């Protein structure tokens, strides 16, 4: 009986952690695939989504709206933050560095990360923030005598729905396919008449929105403090490397693998909890530098 409980919990933890990893790294990899820029400030987008949802949830509650509306607040915060960042950061900054050498691109997005982190501090202050209402409202689930927060299940379901919508968007809509073809071959897309500038803005906005939505979803589960997101960005590097640079589907599968590895490591050898993810990444870079799933593209 205990074994089954354990298995269920491993399963749930893996899925939950993987959905967070996937939301941030699918977006990161999409930006990398289309714009050919590794956006070091992608992690801060997650933070912005999280912080904005604090504001939204707080104001919803202060207007006296019932707690269940805070879930709408979370979604709104994620989408608004993503669209706003997408339509400002890409046209104002990234567009100027496409022709530059890699190191300058990296450094520019690094600078952007520093700036955005302080903008967060400027708006929300250096103190910690918590919005536990949406988390507590759902209560707990009883799994074989162990109580398990239901909000995590909610997070997982919503996260997977968002990923599914993204998948459908990229595979079944015209714009989605145009984005994919631009990622695959920029030059030929130009020759087919694609407005590459606009595609870049769209792709970046979608990537950013995935991250901000991810931030909004995890916001109720953690205590937000400045700089909390810089760990997520390096985690998503690892995912992106394992999945293959620019490979969106690969990033999703790699998120699952990484989440499983982490969940198991936490139980067996907790000191290696995060290290294991980077160790897997190192191994993959050595054995299959193109990523695990190259050829399956």
């Amino acid at each position, binding site marked *: 009986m205990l074994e089954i409980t354990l298995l269920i919990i491993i399963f749930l933890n893996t899925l939950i952690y993987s959905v967070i990893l996937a939301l941030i790294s699918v977006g990161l990899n999409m930006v990398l695939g289309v714009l050919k820029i590794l956006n070091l400030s992608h992690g801060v987008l997650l933070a912005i989504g999280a912080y904005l949802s604090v504001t939204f949830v707080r104001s919803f509650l202060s207007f006296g709206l019932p707690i269940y509306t805070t879930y709408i607040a979370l979604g709104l915060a994620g989408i608004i933050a993503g669209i706003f960042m997408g339509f400002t950061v890409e046209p104002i900054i990234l567009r100027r560095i496409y022709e530059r050498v890699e190191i300058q691109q990296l450094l520019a997005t690094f600078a952007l990360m520093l700036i955005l982190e302080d903008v967060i501090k400027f708006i929300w202050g250096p103190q910690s923030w918590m919005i536990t209402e949406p988390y507590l409202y759902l209560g707990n689930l009883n799994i074989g005598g162990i109580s398990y927060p239901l909000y995590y299940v909610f997070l997982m379901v919503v996260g997977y729905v968002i990923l599914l919508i993204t998948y459908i968007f990229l595979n079944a809509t*015209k714009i989605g*396919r*145009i984005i*994919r*073809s631009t990622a*695959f*071959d920029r*030059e*030929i897309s*130009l*020759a*087919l*008449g*694609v*407005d590459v500038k606009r595609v870049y803005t769209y792709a970046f906005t979608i990537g950013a929105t995935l991250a901000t939505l991810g931030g909004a979803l995890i916001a109720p589960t953690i205590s937000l403090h400045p700089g909390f997101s810089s760990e997520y960005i390096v985690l998503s590097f690892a995912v992106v490397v394992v999945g293959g640079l620019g490979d969106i589907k690969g990033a999703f599968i790699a998120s699952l693998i990484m989440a499983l590895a982490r969940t198991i490591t936490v139980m067996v050898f907790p000191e290696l909890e995060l290290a294991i993810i980077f160790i897997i990444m190192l191994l993959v870079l050595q054995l299959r530098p193109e990523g695990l799933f190259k050829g399956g*593209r």
Partner: protein
Amino acid sequence: MVLLDIVNVDVYIGNVHILRKISFNIEKGEVLGLIGPNGAGKTTTLKTIIGLLPLRTGKIVFEGEDISRLPARNRVGKGITYSPEDRRLISDLTVEENILLPCWVSGSMTKSMIEKNLEIVYKIFPEIKEFKNRKAKLISGGQQKMVSIARALVLMPKLVLLDEPFEGLAPMVANRLLRSIEAMKSLGITTIIAESNLRYVKQIADKIVRIERGEIKEVVENA
């Protein structure tokens, strides 16, 4: 009536001088063969016309309008399309999605227009229909070549640029492609074919331009 006029064009890639003062023109409805060995500058010429490479001096005039500084997508909008030498299909889209891509991009085409054009394309290349739902990476090189040309035709352009269209095609298919180009000609489509091999071009071109080391060597009317 001159459709496209190329006047004293110089093109550099990096610091390398690729095209040296090239000039030629093509009449509306003509088929022009651009002939020259490997590395002579044929692909560069086509890429310059479609707008993938900038020219340093000279100008390109299309239907009386100087298009030298227009971005590629506006040139496509004016009715110029391009099928590259190395096919360059989007390998995880299906064959039909690849062909439809330019229609989706253009945005101004109605569903019925797209369907009509697609039908014409399938009439020219009937075998594409058989594998239209397969992923582009899963068809053979010759088939990819056909799809790449079909993709350039689906917009029913005024001018189509074909880079080595016969390369990799079986002789039978190549002959059919010749017939297709003739059919396109009767539809009023003007064609520039870049080839290193005279064999097929000789059979169809109205005019042959020979290019070597980035210089136009001769322009001959082909009887």
